[in-house]
């Protein structure tokens, strides 16, 4: 007769996760990578947005003094903004591409998990 504890031990072993699972480890690593990037992007936005707001607020009082200096810059201002935004977008995309196992199909995982992910998992 089998010892009941031996039987339980045998059954526990059957539903245990594998001891080594590189796919799982990579999935965790990828999720952490994405989280880290979001954090970095958040940090950039966190200082850039208030800086822009302050500049916007104080601009009327600075404008008269800065007018002579900015005569040329006013014309290239929009171009500078476009260049800066493009660089920021490239930097974000480059960081995302360096996450292990990342592909653009996984962008959905930047959203909180919910019905959408479940449906996507089901369709895969």
């Amino acid at each position, binding site marked *: 007769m089998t010892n009941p504890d031996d*039987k339980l031990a*045998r*059954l526990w072993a059957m*539903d245990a996760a594998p001891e*080594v699972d590189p796919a*799982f480890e990579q999935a*965790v*690593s990828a999720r952490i990578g994405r989280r880290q990037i979001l954090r970095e992007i958040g940090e950039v936005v966190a200082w850039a947005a208030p800086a822009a707001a302050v500049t916007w607020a104080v601009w009327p009082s600075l404008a008269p003094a800065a007018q002579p200096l900015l005569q040329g810059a006013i014309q290239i201002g929009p171009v500078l903004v476009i260049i800066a935004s493009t660089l920021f977008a490239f930097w974000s995309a480059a960081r995302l591409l360096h996450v292990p196992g990342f592909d653009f199909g996984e962008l959905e995982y930047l959203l909180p*998990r919910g019905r959408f992910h479940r449906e996507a998992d089901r369709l895969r």
Partner: protein
Amino acid sequence: MNLIDLDTVLVEEARRGSAQAFDRLVAKHQQAVRSFLRRVTGDWADADDLAQDAFVAAWSGLDSYKGASSVRSWLCAIAWRKALSYQRSSSRRAVRDRAWLEGVQTAVGPGAEDQIALARALEALPIEQRAVVSLCLAAEFSHSEAAEALGLPLGTIKSHVTRGRAKLLEVLGDGDDQS
């Protein structure tokens, strides 16, 4: 260097930003965390999702590890909180129950009958008792380690172990053998 010391060193290195150190922690403890969640949730796919969430939460909260318990207990404590919130979410639970039933119905192979019986027996236990049984009987956690991981008093852990084991053996047809 024993295992707990190595874990503490890895946590320290991960806190300083070493991704490799955290990867090693994941590699070392993924089996314990995933097995625990599989037994608590009854659904392997959801358990793996929750385990990933737990490791991401552990990475975000590395500073919260004070070294008072083992890293394994700390990770299982995070996994336990994830499992509880999963349990509270009724819609996810409904999906899980359906998936679990499908899993039960399609289990095949040697020992499948016993495996189904074990899954049913675990499902019948209250979630706390299931968690205690999963840690103490299946993963060989000490009672105090399980108490730390689940945030339960030691006496509760001991009583859950005794009652949970008795119920499992009863369902598995060995109820007469247990003392």
